[in-house]
């Protein structure tokens, strides 16, 4: 029984519109062309950004945004669509980050080999973890994903001769020789992740995931192999996170245990939630927003994290469906005709 999705408003005929239908109305196939145009504008903006912010500080800040966008979107594919809260995304991020670092340091693999290897390792871990935890529901799944990440963190700390303990592993080969190269490689990976996940979420696969999120039992009764869909989504989510983790390790030329820490998992989760879960586009907004807000509050010193966490609480409290939802509502106020047309379909 799923009590997760509440009905939000009633359409004119009095039939309750669920949130997903509401988003569907604005992000559906019908609107896909304009969405793809939006994606293209976003992609061009990302590609041209170094012309305006070409200094190392801004390049690295934007790289960080790309990294978090990949994490938040990949988290969203499982949790946003099926409602199974993954509290241990750091398991895949840190795990793949360290795997990539070890492959690079001990076997001398370059970034072009470790990036796919990291994604593959994370995907296999996702398959193993998912195949025996995704039959658990709600809080149980959240707890077990959390445990895997916490166990990895402990293991990194205990086997410090292998993983470097608190210091982590330094001296990993750089992703590309210069920051501009890092920027463009991460931009390409990020854009292909976002577009790929977005298209996936619009496919029949995404539809099946949504039906699981709305009511798993009904969805199962309609012939959807829910476990298989959930595991597939988890594997895709994990391997994307692994790719991002390996990329981050190479770009920083360092991996540390904080990549497997629960605070990273909760940060990713906050980004997706603040942006708007279950939409792929929302987490992109959330990741950019929180990374940039966090950075721009740096002048506040000690108060920075207080303001930041208070802002997150306020957003969740007053816009529980995230910023994207606010934008959609705001634009349907500003553009009432467009909203009407979609309703009349």
């Amino acid at each position, binding site marked *: 029984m799923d009590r997760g999705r509440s009905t939000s408003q009633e359409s004119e005929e009095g039939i309750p519109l669920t949130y997903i239908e509401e988003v569907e109305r604005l992000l559906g196939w019908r609107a896909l062309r304009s969405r793809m145009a939006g994606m293209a504008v976003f992609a061009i903006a990302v590609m041209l950004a170094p012309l305006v912010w070409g200094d190392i500080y801004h390049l690295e800040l934007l790289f960080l945004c790309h990294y978090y966008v990949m994490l938040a979107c990949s988290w969203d594919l499982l949790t946003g669509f099926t409602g199974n809260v993954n509290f241990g995304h750091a398991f895949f991020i840190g795990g793949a980050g360290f795997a990539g670092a070890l492959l690079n340091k001990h076997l001398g693999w370059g970034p072009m080999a470790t990036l796919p290897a990291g994604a593959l390792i994370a995907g296999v871990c996702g398959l193993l973890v998912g195949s025996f935890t995704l039959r658990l529901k709600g809080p149980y799944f959240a707890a077990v994903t959390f445990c895997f990440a916490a166990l990895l963190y402990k293991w990194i700390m205990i086997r410090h001769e292998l993983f470097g303990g608190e210091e982590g592993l330094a001296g990993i080969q750089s992703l590309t020789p210069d920051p501009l190269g890092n920027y463009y490689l991460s931009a390409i990976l990020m854009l292909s992740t976002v577009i790929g996940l977005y298209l996936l979420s619009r496919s029949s696969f995404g539809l099946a995931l949504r039906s699981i999120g709305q009511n798993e039992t009904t969805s199962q009764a309609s012939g959807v192999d829910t476990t298989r869909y959930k595991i597939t989504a988890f594997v895709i989510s994990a391997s994307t996170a692994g790719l991002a983790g390996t990329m981050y390790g190479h770009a920083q030329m360092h991996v540390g245990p904080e990549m497997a820490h629960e605070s990273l998992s909760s940060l990713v989760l906050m980004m997706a939630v603040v942006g708007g879960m279950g939409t792929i586009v929302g987490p992109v907004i959330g990741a950019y927003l929180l990374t940039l807000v966090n950075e721009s509050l740096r002048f506040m010193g000690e108060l920075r994290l207080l303001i930041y966490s208070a802002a997150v609480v306020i957003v969740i*409290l007053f816009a529980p469906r995230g910023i994207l939802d606010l934008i959609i509502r705001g634009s349907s106020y500003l553009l009432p005709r467009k909203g009407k047309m979609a309703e009349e379909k």
Partner: protein
Amino acid sequence: MTTFLDILVLGTLWGSIYALISVGFTLIFGVAGVINLAHGAFYMLGAYLAYTFIGVLELPVILSAAMAIGGTAFVGMVVDRVCIKPMRQNHAYVLLITLALALLFQELMYVFFGPHGKAVQDFLKGEILLGNVRVTYQKVLTMLASWISVGALWAFIKKTKTGKSIDAVAQNVEAAVLMGIQPERVYLMTMGISAALAGTAGMLISPILEAVPGMWAFPLFKAFAVVIIGGLGSVEGAVLAAMLLGYSETAVSRLVSANYPDMVYLVAIILILVLRPRGLMGKRAQ
């Protein structure tokens, strides 16, 4: 022999504290279906309030303890009304808002009290010798107070009319409403009790461990573990699992290595969820 006694004494101490922390966590889940990730933050609040009243304002211990517990219960009820009530049925939302609140409380404590640990003096000075093991009165007091609190909760739920209304809502909300019980009032009261129990644990532990801004995570993880091992929503299961966890962690730390006790609860959660997902004493989920 000393090792054995050590495990027995320290295991009982930690088991009692885990029990006190986790009964509140399991109670609010069992009654309102709320996974309260801010539970650890209430524990932290109890510790910091104890520090403020005892360490800074130098009030008498009994008064300070009562005010720390009352203050935490009040904050718990405010959190329930303001943050949880609007979306109580949505598990994912409750998980997220309470996690965000826990992080907010952590930053508040950081800004008010700074990053360094704040130690509170022992409520009772002195120690007793059990064989070769020294046990401070503070630890004895903590153990006793934990058991009294858990016992009082048990008696309240099973014996008083108000307490029975909590049990009724936990069993079946619709039936409880038909009996004239207002579920929202029960949820508010349960949250208050749950927060008060967490605050009691934090207050009692403040002389043993220091109060630091990151301290909310450890009790939360332990409560989560205990509740999953014991069965979500089962108070008896939580007490049993808390004692088992207390003994096994102390045993691992004494007999194997001080590195591994934190692995115990993680491995236990995974094993339980794979082998017996409803926990030791949990009801079968539908």
